[in-house]
């Protein structure tokens, strides 16, 4: 840069050729013209002009340079980035009035606010030359409109140059300075993107060395009062007819092509001249066209154009980008001069008022104009290239990797989700406007610069009186805030608007290439103004500065600011990634990597063909990501696993997202009994010792399955069974308890033919007979079980093994058999059987069955003595109590309280219901009174000491179950007559076992369901070489493995459950959150996984917080380039 600046300041006695951009040529031309000061607000496509003067200024004011390069620093050029174009214009005018030549530089729309100053000073006077450079943007590459600045000529009555090339611009700037000095009027030079940003070869010459003395002369023209304006207007118009202008009009109306033939005349201005010259030079057509290029277009070169027209062309074509400025003037002229001239302009061929010209567009226009086809046989287009251009991915601009604006938008996405509210977010001009595009989409309006705050105020006011009155949000950059946001904010405070203003303070003017502004002065040349004290001084109560990379803290502040009534302001402050302070802060010698085993991976099941009803939407994943950062309690998914392998992560997060439909479907992906488990599951998913607060999955399951509409809809499992690829293999299941039914549910969905044999006249087994009705919804269970029929399972009821059919027979008739007959025979004690009359004793199964059928014979006010410390003893005790509140229920067991095999919560329920417990006790002897009352003599079990004498009316033995050994011939059993098996395989033919009958089975309903699933997988392994294992072992073992006192499930007593406090996290295949909601360009999706391109990563580290799968992390390794 220093070399470039030196070159720009060297005065060349002999012309020096250099190839530079139009904007650089403009800067050099101003220097050659001896400019004393430049005032500017940056804006594409004008920016490079002011950047050069910024560098020139820094170079010239540097003491070392002053000493080393006296020639280059002897005429210092003042430069400033004014806060906006209006101030730049006003200051440039004043500078000129102080007898220093000035240049004021801006983009097209800048003139809109600067024009106030221009339109008055022309009636008055300037002193030293003042040149205004305005750069238009046809095609709107980087502007909010494509307004045509040539109108400022007639509007302000100032001369306006319209260069076609960098070479033109270079010359015209010098002419403009000269003219302005002569007629004491500001002179405009208007360029377009293709002139400013095109490079051409310029001849640098000598720099004007004239030194101007600063002075102020008290002239009457400096005071603008109405009495003088009429005269002043006449004087102004006279200046436009003055000799210097007339000379320039002649000089700058150039006959670029001069044909003898008078068929075609072209009048063009601006970059159109470049295009048309090139096209004509490439074609033989050149000799038939005359071309007049207009360089000074206001006042209009009437004489020159008339002279051109007088050559009597058959047709005249007028070429200019944007509005028909020249065309209208030419038409006006022909009308005034009564010329009968055929003129072609806007509306002819491809000539429109909108957009840019191009070689292709003008070639067509010239072909149409001349009725000729321009062919170039040397340059035939590639064949069928169009198909390569179809559906090509677009490449819109995006916020840079590491950009603090993305961080701010991301935290706003989490803090004020837009899907759930009608919150209006008013954006503004600048880099951060890219937040309107996917994936951020956090902006509703973008208008002109500084409009955001006014838009928010106005919208707030329009809703003010209505019921919908609410806070409106304004978003703007720090540069824009000082440019034009500040005055609007004063108005907001003044009018008591209820708005939140978020200032994206990235410490620079980012969009235009990092210029300083009052909030980030960057050099001692400018004084820095801190935004926060400024706002507090205005009386704004809530002014908070946030660090956008600290998402959690910032979200709290956003929420507070949203709640405040009145104007609240958040300053999201973090440097642009191009600033040194960003780079200084970033991690060195580290890189960020993605663990592909966690990225977009299902951690729940390996078999990807299994149904997953988790609904994938960017919004859902946003909710997971929010939970990750904001939840008070975070629990890894593996802590809350289910023996039935239900995806509790997906289940919980669906509820968190309000999607209870997906939640119940996720349960049914793996298991039939959503409601039954919601009632009676022993929730191994909640049985974990190290986490005090767990998510009450069972309670949520109950909640979700209590929704009748969701509960009754089994269409998805039915559809899955229908659509399953048929295996043409049959499976017999003996026993319609929860184990057998679960095996049937899985197998029917895997395409098997399934027949269930049940000895009772109804399905359900122990769930139907042994679980007391007050613990569960019996009708709900029946409904769930009934769905199997709809799914295609065949039931044979009243079919008893050993009586109606044999196992042997089924093994031959079916491809596989699952034995799930349960343990339906209660164990008894000889002491009881022999000493107590049969009407006073019963076993637990008979008692519970009679209880559920409401046929219990126990009389009111009885003492019921229950022997046993297991779950059925608890059920029996609670049922007996429920028969009549006057019943006294005593439970006697060998074990101490903590050693009881019953689940902790069952014991607690029983205790709470007034059941008495005799731990460490056993019956020593029994006597029967005359009244028929039984007297029990109890001893302690541990040391056989006399303990208590208890009179009772009934005794129920609940000491475990067994089965009829006759039905399990051929199968190997353990001491309890349970069938020994390995993963369900009995070792006998094609027979698998499930449920209570299988050795090593885990008690409880969920244990039975799990064993049914395990047997179903066994069948699939046997019959189709299924490759996956049963995936619920970890949770299943937990059901029994954990010592009783620690089995306390979480949140048991919490009635109101704040679900938002929790985060249950696990990798999920249906993720893509970082791409869908964050969109850092360093993140690349390759083969379904996200990768980080180290060449583009700026190491801001925010993605680590963003990833809901915890798949992204730092790694301290040598940076190696990763190719995308």
């Amino acid at each position, binding site marked *: 840069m220093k070399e470039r600046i030196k070159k720009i300041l060297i005065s060349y006695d002999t012309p020096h050729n250099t*190839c530079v951009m139009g904007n650089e040529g403009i800067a050099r031309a101003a220097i050659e013209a001896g400019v004393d000061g430049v005032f500017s607000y940056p804006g594409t496509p004008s920016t490079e002009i002011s950047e050069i003067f910024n560098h020139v200024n820094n170079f010239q004011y540097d003491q070392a340079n002053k000493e080393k390069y006296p020639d280059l620093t002897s005429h210092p050029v003042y430069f400033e980035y004014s806060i906006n174009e209006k101030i730049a214009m006003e200051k440039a005018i004043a500078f000129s009035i102080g007898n220093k030549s000035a240049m004021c530089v801006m983009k097209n729309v800048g003139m809109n606010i600067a024009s106030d100053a221009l339109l008055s000073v022309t009636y008055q006077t300037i002193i030293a030359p003042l040149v205004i450079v305005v750069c238009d943007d046809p095609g709107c590459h980087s502007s909010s409109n494509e307004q045509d600045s040539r109108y400022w000529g007639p509007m302000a009555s100032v001369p306006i140059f319209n260069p076609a090339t960098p070479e033109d611009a270079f010359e015209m700037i010098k002419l403009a300075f000269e003219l302005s000095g002569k007629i004491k009027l500001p002179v405009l030079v208007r360029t377009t993107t293709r002139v400013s940003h*095109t490079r*051409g070869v310029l001849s640098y010459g000598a720099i004007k060395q004239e030194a101007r003395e600063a002075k102020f002369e008290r002239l009457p023209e400096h005071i603008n009062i109405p009495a003088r304006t009429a005269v002043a207007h006449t004087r102004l118009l006279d200046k436009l007819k003055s000799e210097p202008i007339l000379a320039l009009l002649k000089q700058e109306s150039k006959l670029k092509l001069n044909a003898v033939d008078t068929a075609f005349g072209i009048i063009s201005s601006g970059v159109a001249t470049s*295009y048309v010259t090139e096209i004509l030079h490439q074609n033989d057509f050149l000799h038939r066209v005359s071309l007049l290029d207009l360089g000074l277009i206001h006042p209009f070169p009437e004489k020159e154009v008339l002279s051109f027209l007088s050559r009597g062309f058959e047709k005249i074509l007028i070429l200019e980008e944007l509005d028909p400025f020249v065309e209208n003037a030419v038409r006006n002229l022909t009308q005034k001069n009564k010329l009968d001239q055929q003129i072609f302009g806007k509306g002819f061929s491809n000539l429109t008022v909108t957009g840019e010209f191009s070689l292709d567009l003008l070639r067509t226009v010239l072909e149409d104009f001349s009725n000729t086809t321009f062919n170039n046989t040397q340059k035939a287009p*590639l064949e069928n290239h169009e198909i*390569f251009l179809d559906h090509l991915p677009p490449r819109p601009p*995006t916020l840079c990797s590491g950009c603090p604006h993305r961080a701010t938008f991301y935290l706003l996405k989490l803090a004020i989700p837009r899907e759930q509210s009608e919150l209006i977010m008013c954006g503004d001009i600048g880099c951060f406007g890219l937040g309107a595009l996917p994936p951020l989409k956090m902006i509703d309006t973008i208008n002109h610069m500084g409009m955001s705050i006014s838009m928010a105020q106005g919208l707030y006011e329009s809703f003010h009186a209505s019921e919908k009155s609410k806070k409106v949000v304004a978003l703007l950059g720090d540069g824009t805030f000082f440019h034009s946001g500040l005055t609007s904010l004063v108005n907001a405070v003044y009018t008591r608007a209820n708005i939140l203003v978020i200032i994206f303070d990235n410490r620079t003017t980012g969009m235009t290439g990092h210029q300083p502004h009052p909030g980030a002065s960057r050099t001692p040349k400018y004084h820095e103004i801190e935004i926060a004290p400024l706002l507090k001084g205005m009386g704004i109560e809530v002014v908070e500065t946030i660090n956008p990379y600290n998402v959690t803290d910032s979200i709290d502040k956003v929420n507070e600011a949203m709640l405040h009534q009145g104007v609240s302001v958040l300053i999201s402050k973090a440097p642009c990634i191009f600033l040194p302070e960003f780079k200084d802060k970033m991690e060195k010698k580290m890189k960020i990597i993605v663990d592909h085993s966690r990225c977009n991976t299902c951690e729940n099941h390996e078999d990807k063909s299994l149904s997953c009803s988790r609904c994938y939407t960017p919004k859902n994943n946003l909710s997971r990501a929010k939970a990750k950062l904001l939840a008070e309690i975070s629990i890894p998914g593996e802590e809350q696993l289910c023996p039935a392998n239900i995806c509790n992560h997906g289940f919980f997060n669906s509820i968190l997202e309000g999607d209870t439909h997906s939640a119940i479907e996720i349960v049914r992906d793996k298991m039939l009994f959503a409601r039954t488990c919601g009632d009676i599951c022993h929730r191994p998913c909640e049985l974990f010792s190290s986490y005090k607060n767990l998510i009450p999955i069972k309670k949520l399951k109950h909640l979700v399955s209590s929704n009748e509409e969701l509960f009754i809809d089994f269409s998805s499992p039915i559809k899955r069974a229908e659509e399953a690829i048929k295996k043409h293999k049959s499976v017999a299941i003996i026993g319609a308890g929860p184990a057998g039914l679960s095996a049937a549910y899985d197998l029917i969905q895997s395409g098997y033919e399934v027949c269930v044999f049940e000895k009772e006249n109804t399905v359900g087994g122990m769930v139907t007979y042994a679980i007391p009705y007050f613990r569960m919804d019996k009708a709900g269970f029946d409904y769930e079980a009934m769905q199997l029929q709809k799914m295609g399972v065949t039931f044979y009821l009243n079919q008893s093994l050993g009586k109606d059919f044999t196992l042997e027979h089924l093994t031959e008739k079916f491809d596989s058999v699952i034995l799930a007959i349960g343990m339906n025979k209660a164990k008894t004690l000889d002491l009881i059987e022999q000493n107590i009359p049969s009407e006073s004793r019963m076993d637990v199964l008979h008692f519970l069955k009679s209880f559920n059928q409401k046929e219990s014979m126990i009389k009111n006010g009885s003492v019921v003595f229950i022997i046993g410390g297991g779950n059925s003893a608890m059920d029996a005790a609670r049922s007996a109590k429920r028969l009549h509140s006057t019943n006294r229920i005593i439970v006697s067991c060998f074990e101490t309280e903590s050693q009881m095999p019953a689940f902790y919560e069952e014991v607690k329920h029983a205790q709470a219901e007034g059941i008495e417990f005799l731990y460490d006790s056993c019956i020593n002897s029994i006597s029967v009174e005359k009244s028929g009352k039984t007297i029990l003599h109890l001893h302690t079990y541990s040391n056989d000491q006399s303990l208590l004498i208890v009179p009772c009316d009934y005794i129920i033995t609940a000491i475990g179950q067994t089965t009829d050994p006759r039905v399990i011939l051929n199968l190997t059993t353990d001491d309890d007559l349970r069938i020994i098996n390995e993963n369900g395989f009995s070792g006998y033919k094609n027979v698998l076992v499930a449920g209570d009958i299988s050795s090593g089975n885990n008690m409880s309903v969920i244990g039975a369901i799990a064993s049914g699933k395990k047997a179903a997988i066994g069948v699939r392994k046997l019959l189709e070489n299924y490759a996956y294992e049963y995936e619920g072992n970890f949770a299943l073992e937990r059901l029994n493995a954990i010592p009783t006192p620690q089995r306390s499930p979480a949140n048991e007593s919490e009635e109101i459950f704040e679900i938002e406090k929790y985060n249950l996290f696990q990798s999920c295949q249906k993720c893509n959150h970082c791409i869908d909601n964050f969109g850092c360009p360093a993140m690349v999706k390759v083969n379904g996984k996200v990768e980080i391109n180290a*060449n583009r990563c700026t190491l801001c580290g925010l993605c680590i917080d963003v990833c809901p799968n915890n798949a992204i992390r730092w790694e301290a390794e040598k940076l190696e380039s990763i190719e995308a």
Partner: protein
Amino acid sequence: MNMIKNIKILIAGVGGQGVVFLSNLVVEAAMISNIPVSVSEIHGLSQRGGVVTSGIGLGAHCTGFIGKASVDFLFGLEPLETQRCLSYLHKNSSVIFGHYRIQPYSVNAEITQYPELSVLATYLEKQCKEAVFIKEFAKHIDPILYNVFMLGRASRMNDFPFQEPLLEAAINNTLHGTKNKETMDAFKLGVAYEFDKKQAPLNS
């Protein structure tokens, strides 16, 4: 000024890939050769990851503006941007393009598909006068220098107007001594790229 046959060169890439720097080197080579040169760059929001193109016109009345079937020589610094320029090429065009992909958002979001490079390479080899596809850049060079690497390889192509010594001079003039060695090394690696596989270049 040297009057040569007009040549239009287009350099296409993504912000941050050094399109403008490469363009400056070509301009400098033209200036040393005293050839008329004009350049038109499009880089509205290039720092924000957008498309950057630089058109260079060599010879009298030849602008840097690009039209259909007007480009004689294309540098594709990024494959997708190379493909986007196909309508500007003609049957006598020469093309050099590299494999280094920069995926736009819509590809990551799986809304669109990134085109298949081998298909493009085959097509260009068949359709153009000369096409060089850089399948692999030398491992240790910074991707920011892929531009000069490609310039090195381009110097051996038949229709590229500037040869190795001249381009070296252009690099030296443009860099003013900073990062000179790395740049020159990358350039020379480019010159040597697949040298054995091709017939010796004309300018060796």
